[in-house]
């Protein structure tokens, strides 16, 4: 029935789902965890406020993400869409307008719906423009060159970079900085986070990115998933420490269990 070598990870997957589901239910009935402060998430409002003061646009990037929603980067884009929704609601409230630059084509319809929904919820659906979503091409470098030119021409006041960046993170980020943009970033991708730390004024690294997306998503009880994630991290820490000690003592039933 099962592929050999994957039963262990299927067990872990089910365990993750159970723990998260319990925590979600707890939040629905009123108990809620205290989430550590995420300065980068709070600075998004500061970025949009700065754009309103200076009367210049807000640019948003979700990255090339290896081709978008059909790839394993889909969860990263799902979270990016929550953060786009949060940013779009702020720009609707402050009236600065927002422009998201896109590579992968399958992100175009989702981005349009997300921004339109944000503007509708804020009651200014008339301000929504289809051209707020700029698709440049599925090719990573064409998308990058279009953004770099737009940065120099339109001089954005703020640049929010949240998503699955690949080679282009340094290009998009530095192009924004050269145009004087206040840059807030975030990515769970280990290949690009070191650039975001160098470029951005505030950055969400790793799981902070998913936690930020959960805390601003449209279903308020999704905060419970951060709580569940912490429980699983403690479980993983236990597995690592106990597993290593047992391994040194020659007892390896933990690894056998995981490798089942």
């Amino acid at each position, binding site marked *: 029935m099962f*592929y050999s*070598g*994957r039963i262990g990870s299927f067990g872990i997957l089910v365990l993750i789902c159970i723990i998260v589901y319990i925590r979600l239910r707890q939040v629905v009935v009123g108990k809620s965890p205290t989430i550590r402060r*995420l*300065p*980068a998430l709070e*600075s998004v409002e500061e970025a949009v406020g700065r754009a309103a003061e200076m009367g210049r646009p807000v640019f948003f990037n979700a990255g090339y993400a*290896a*081709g978008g929603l*059909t*790839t*394993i980067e889909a969860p990263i884009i799902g979270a990016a869409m929550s953060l786009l929704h949060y940013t779009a609601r702020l720009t609707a409230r402050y009236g600065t307008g927002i422009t998201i630059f896109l590579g992968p084509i399958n992100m175009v319809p989702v981005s349009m719906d997300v921004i339109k929904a944000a503007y509708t919820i804020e009651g200014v659906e008339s301000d929504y423009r289809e051209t707020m979503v700029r698709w440049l091409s599925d*090719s*990573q*470098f064409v998308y990058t060159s279009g953004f770099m030119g737009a940065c120099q021409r339109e001089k954005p006041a703020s640049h929010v970079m949240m998503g699955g960046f*690949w*080679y282009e993170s340094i290009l998009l980020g530095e192009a924004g900085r*050269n145009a004087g943009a206040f840059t807030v970033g975030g990515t769970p991708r*280990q*290949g690009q986070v070191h650039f*975001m*730390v*160098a470029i*951005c*004024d*505030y*950055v*969400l690294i790793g799981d902070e990115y998913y936690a930020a997306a959960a805390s601003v998503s449209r279903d308020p009880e999704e905060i419970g998933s951060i709580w569940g994630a912490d429980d699983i991290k403690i479980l993983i820490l236990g597995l690592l420490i106990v597993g290593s000690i047992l391994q040194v003592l020659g007892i390896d039933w933990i690894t056998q269990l995981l490798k089942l």
Partner: protein
Amino acid sequence: MEQRHIIYLLLAIMIAIPYIQPIGIPVETSKMTRDFYNKLKSLPEGSAVVLMVDVGLGSWVELGPATVAVVQHLLDLPIKLLVSGGSAELPVVWEYTLEQGNIKLGDNKYGEDYVVLGFITGGEPAAAALADNLHLTKEDQYGTPLEEIPMMKDLRTAADVKVVLSIMAGTQEEWYLRQWRAPYGTDVGIIVSAVTTALAMTYYVSGQIFGMVNSLRGGAEYELLISKPGKGVVGTDMLSLSHLLLVGLLIIGNIQLLYEKFSGTRKPEEKTGG
């Protein structure tokens, strides 16, 4: 003339020097390149190797020398080579490899020793679909149906393939670990852009990947392994000069910081990463 313009100019000059006048700083061969080379050399006769081109021409500059060296090595070995890939620019990259690298085909015949399948878009699902069915594209890059190609007769799924190689600049190695090595046991080797070497290193260190040719430097090493020096070797001089410049800039930047701290003329605090 802002500070950044000065840095751009300095970098351009330091990189241009070796191309005008090569210096010849010595290059050692790293373990991961030798592992890659030895694995291919040790393949039994007639075993099938799939070369996946997962980068476009944009990466040719960095991965070209390594690609040319590996393809020349594969064609010299008595193996069956299948070329496919996730990049829409596969046909162009393949012609470029043969043309720019002036690859010697020797007695390799198309359709018997090597074949170029069409590219497959769609990321990991497509790589998985190709593993399940090597005849996924139904016809090769030049339009001839795969059924008529002699070497494709007994090559049905990834189980018939000994080694899959990926020329990559992202995290494609995980596609092949998950969709080729896990289910079918095909060994995975990669020609990788230095951008993603650190990530792929975890899989090489844990033994899931048998070898890695790491960008231009790896290309220079592989050229020396098959004793056919080319663009890779010149490139490593350029790496030395540009990296020396970067370290110099970082040191100057921090001396500037210490000078400001002690002479009390500190600029307003710049927010660093949160």
